[in-house]
């Protein structure tokens, strides 16, 4: 009994060490998106290039689709465009959700013509992975999706359920690890 007592401080020290060691390598910014495993939210938004055309949630259903929230003002988005273009060539359906810079929208306003010109130029330079681009005018869809910045990507299954999420750019490593197995599961069926 007396010897057992001696182990209490040792055990406490070990427990604290393990706890702090885990803390060393945990990433506080790695917060799970609240929309995972939930249905894609409803929306009614125009096409970025042809604003008279309107898209709804139903337009995204039918096959497994990658939804990419991006903007020309966002540097990381530029980085992932070439890789995503490659994915499109491999038969992945990618839909863009165009996300204006909130600070710019707030202080100077957004000029749609200018945005369209920027998008055209950027996609011509770096590759166009998108089947079409939904223009998230007031960023309500992005807010419904719990987007914290650009780029962010969501993988939805044919029924519109969100099955994977990525905060930041998608590259080969991330795609193979988080997305490819899920896509294979649905495309194999």
């Amino acid at each position, binding site marked *: 009994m007396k010897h057992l007592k001696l182990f209490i401080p040792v055990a406490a020290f070990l427990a604290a060490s393990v706890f702090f060691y885990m803390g060393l390598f945990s990433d506080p910014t790695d917060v799970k998106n*609240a929309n995972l495993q939930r249905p894609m939210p409803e929306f009614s938004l125009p096409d970025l290039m042809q604003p008279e055309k309107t898209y709804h949630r139903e337009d995204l259903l039918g096959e497994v689709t990658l939804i990419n929230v991006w903007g020309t003002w966002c540097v990381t988005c530029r980085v992932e465009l070439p890789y995503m273009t490659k994915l499109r060539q491999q038969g992945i359906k990618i839909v863009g959700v165009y996300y204006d810079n909130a*600070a710019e929208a*707030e202080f100077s306003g957004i000029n749609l013509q200018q945005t369209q010109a920027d998008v055209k130029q950027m996609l011509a330079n770096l590759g166009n992975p998108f089947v079409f681009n939904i223009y998230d005018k007031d960023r309500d869809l992005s807010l419904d999706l*719990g*987007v*914290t*910045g650009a780029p962010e990507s969501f993988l939805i299954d044919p029924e519109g359920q969100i099955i994977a999420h990525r905060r930041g750019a998608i590259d080969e490593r991330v795609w193979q690890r988080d997305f490819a197995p899920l896509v294979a599961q649905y495309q194999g069926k």
Partner: protein
Amino acid sequence: MKYLILIMLSLVSLTLTAAEQNYPFDDVQKEQDFNQLLQELRCPKCQNQNIADSNALVAIDLKNKTYQLVQEGKSKKEVVDFMVQRYGNFVHYDPPINSLTIWLWLVPILFIVLLAGWIILNSRKPNIAAHSISEQDKQKAAALLAEIEAERKNK
């Protein structure tokens, strides 16, 4: 030096009120709710700032949304629920008690209870021993005292 501090303090409060004036309200209650919500809602991008403090792009959108919802007549709880639905419990500085967060409250209480129990148990034993002086020691003490008394009288 005093004046410098005064000037700096006045500058700080000026920027604070300037931020609030971007969102005009007719209703005092709504304005109060809105300001409290800005303090309570946490910026999902910048971790340790509320959305009133943060300049992150997403904080601008969350402020605008909060303003819109409060103007529509939503209660504070409804706005918080709206945000938690989209951004998770992370977005609120007052998270609910669940199977995980309950430990934040239980562990300190358990610790205090255990410590108090340990102190009580340990403080009893030595006290009993200390109070019970053996007959032998008492006699020794009496003898010593008598000796000292005798020495004093001799002087």
